[in-house]
């Protein structure tokens, strides 16, 4: 591994700004790492190597620009986000030939900040999955053990960041799809508050749940990325018209956790959590206490209903959102269709994979006449109760903390035949999306049994990303740094 790719995003950015390294060298280091690891990792779906090098060359000729916060920093982007003139498949055959002619709002911002987009990362088809095994193209491996999954659905982004293929990658999080792969791969991943980052140019899955966020190797790096991609966008009607703090500046000088109250939800620390996960997270909580934090028990009593609520809402929204894939305006069209009806049915049945079809069918079912009240409306009511749980808990503490996943990364193929089992594994990440609140997963060590990274989550009140980033930075500094991923 070259020295450059061992640097954090903020380190490489600062060296780029001082011209100690060139943008071309930074890009070349990432491309060379991708070349060396991709055969085992399969994290990248599309690489824009020549464009990235050409862009870096032009940037070097013009010189660093102090107004561009990510000048020369190479990043990767989950394939659910539109990047102009680059294939955007969303991990699906139905979008195999789709090339957007515009940039997503967050991509415009990244480009304006001087970041160099290297390519697109692998994902579960339409972000439906927790292991990246549902990609229509390939299965991404975990850089810590290539026989194990990287988590999902942003598994390509997490694996790429952990393996040093880039300094940051964008992911999307509808029910944990940034935080769970971040935990499985030993990286930091933040799902911002709903409305913090524009969804314009993101292929929609569950529109009331989806958020774009960065996966990085440090909390400072996440703060740097979030500061760039956040902000109001008139093209996303749910985007929040709020000032975006300079998150990186908000973290500067943070040294301890005095004055911070951390709530531990009872429901996140009980049965069903692997011993090695509980031990690593408990150790991190002890470290937080030693840094001056006050730790209090809290309760999120509707947690046992979260998985059912989440999957009703997410599948209902997916069935509606994915109606647009009809074989007419873009995407795959079944060649043999004789009528319009047949064109729709055959294009969708051949273009979508099994998990996507399963979710569309269930989503259609829970929205159909006679079932709507019992499923969809009921879930929306429980959603309010789940959100109220968080509001009540935040009356007693500043941040909440618990494991990201009940277990560390599991072997490839272990859960593919049992969709319900896979859904249940999302228990600790989904409530946050229902409530629309920000959450971050950070590495807190390696599991005693598995040797795989363990992730711990920090949740904050709406628009309080700075509080969880600061906590993650201080806590991360006090915990032993993870070694290089062992599987590569």
């Amino acid at each position, binding site marked *: 591994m070259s020295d450059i790719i061992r640097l954090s995003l903020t380190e490489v950015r600062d060296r780029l700004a001082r011209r100690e390294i060139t943008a071309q060298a930074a890009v070349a280091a990432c491309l060379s790492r991708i070349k060396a690891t991709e055969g085992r990792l399969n994290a990248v779906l599309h690489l824009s190597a020549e464009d990235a090098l050409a862009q870096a060359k032009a940037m070097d000729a013009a010189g660093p620009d102090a107004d561009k916060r990510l000048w020369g920093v190479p990043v990767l982007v989950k394939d659910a986000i539109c990047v102009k003139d680059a294939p955007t498949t969303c991990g699906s055959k139905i979008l195999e*030939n789709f*090339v*957007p*002619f515009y940039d997503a709002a967050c991509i415009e911002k990244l480009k304006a900040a001087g970041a160099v987009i290297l390519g697109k990362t692998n994902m579960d088809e339409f972000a439906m999955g927790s292991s990246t095994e549902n990609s229509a193209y390939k299965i991404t491996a975990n850089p810590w053990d290539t026989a194990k999954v990287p988590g999902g659905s942003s598994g390509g982004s997490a694996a790429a960041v952990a393996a040093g293929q880039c300094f940051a990658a964008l992911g999307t999080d509808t029910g944990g799809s940034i935080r769970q792969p971040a935990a499985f791969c030993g990286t930091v991943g933040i799902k911002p508050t709903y*409305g913090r980052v524009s969804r314009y140019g993101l292929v929609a899955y569950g529109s*009331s749940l989806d958020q774009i966020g960065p996966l990085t190797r440090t909390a400072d790096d996440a703060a740097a990325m979030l500061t760039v991609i956040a902000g109001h966008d*008139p093209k996303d*009607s749910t985007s929040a018209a709020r000032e975006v703090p300079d998150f990186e500046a908000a973290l500067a000088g943070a040294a301890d956790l005095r004055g911070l109250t951390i709530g531990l939800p009872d429901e996140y620390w009980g049965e069903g959590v692997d011993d090695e996960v509980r031990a690593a997270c408990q150790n991190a909580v002890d470290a937080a206490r030693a840094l001056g934090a006050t730790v209090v028990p809290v309760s999120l009593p509707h947690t*046992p*209903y979260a*998985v*059912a609520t989440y*999957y*009703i809402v997410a599948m209902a929204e997916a*069935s509606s959102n994915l*109606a647009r894939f*009809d074989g*007419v*305006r*873009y*995407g*795959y*069209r079944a060649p043999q*269709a*004789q*009528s*319009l009806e*047949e*064109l729709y*049915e055959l294009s*969708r049945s051949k273009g*979508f994979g*099994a998990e996507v*079809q*399963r979710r*569309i*069918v*269930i989503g*259609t*079912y*829970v929205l*159909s006449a006679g079932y709507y009240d*019992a*499923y969809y*409306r*009921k*879930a*929306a*009511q*429980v959603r*309010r*109760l789940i*959100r109220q749980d968080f509001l009540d808990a935040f009356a007693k503490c500043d941040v909440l903390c618990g494991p990201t996943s009940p277990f560390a990364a599991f072997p490839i193929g272990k859960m593919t035949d049992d*969709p*319900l089992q896979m*859904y249940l594994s999302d228990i600790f990440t989904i409530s946050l999306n229902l*409530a*629309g*609140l920000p959450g971050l997963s950070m590495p807190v060590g390696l599991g005693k049994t598995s040797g795989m990274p363990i992730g711990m989550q920090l949740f904050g009140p*709406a628009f309080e990303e700075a509080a969880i980033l600061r906590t993650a930075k201080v806590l991360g500094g006090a915990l032993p740094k993870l070694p290089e991923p062992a599987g590569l």
Partner: protein
Amino acid sequence: MTIQPEAVAKVAKLAKLRLDGDKVGRFASQMDGILAYMETLGALDTTGVEPLYSPVADAVTPMRPDVAVKTCPRDKILANAPQTDGQFFIVPKIV
């Protein structure tokens, strides 16, 4: 509750999906388990609870000035379509 394969086929039809024989049966048995799990929500009394459909606190639809803005050039939009005549999307004969 048991979901019959016929019911799955009907819902699939509503969703414009055509499931082959194998898949209908497999989906039916998987849906059985998944829907039974979803029905655990029935145990919770939600009388009088207002549904929450979006986490945006004050879900008002933002307004913008009613000014026409040209955003998408036709040729760029048509470039991703499976079949066009350069002006329109082409689909099989409807009437």
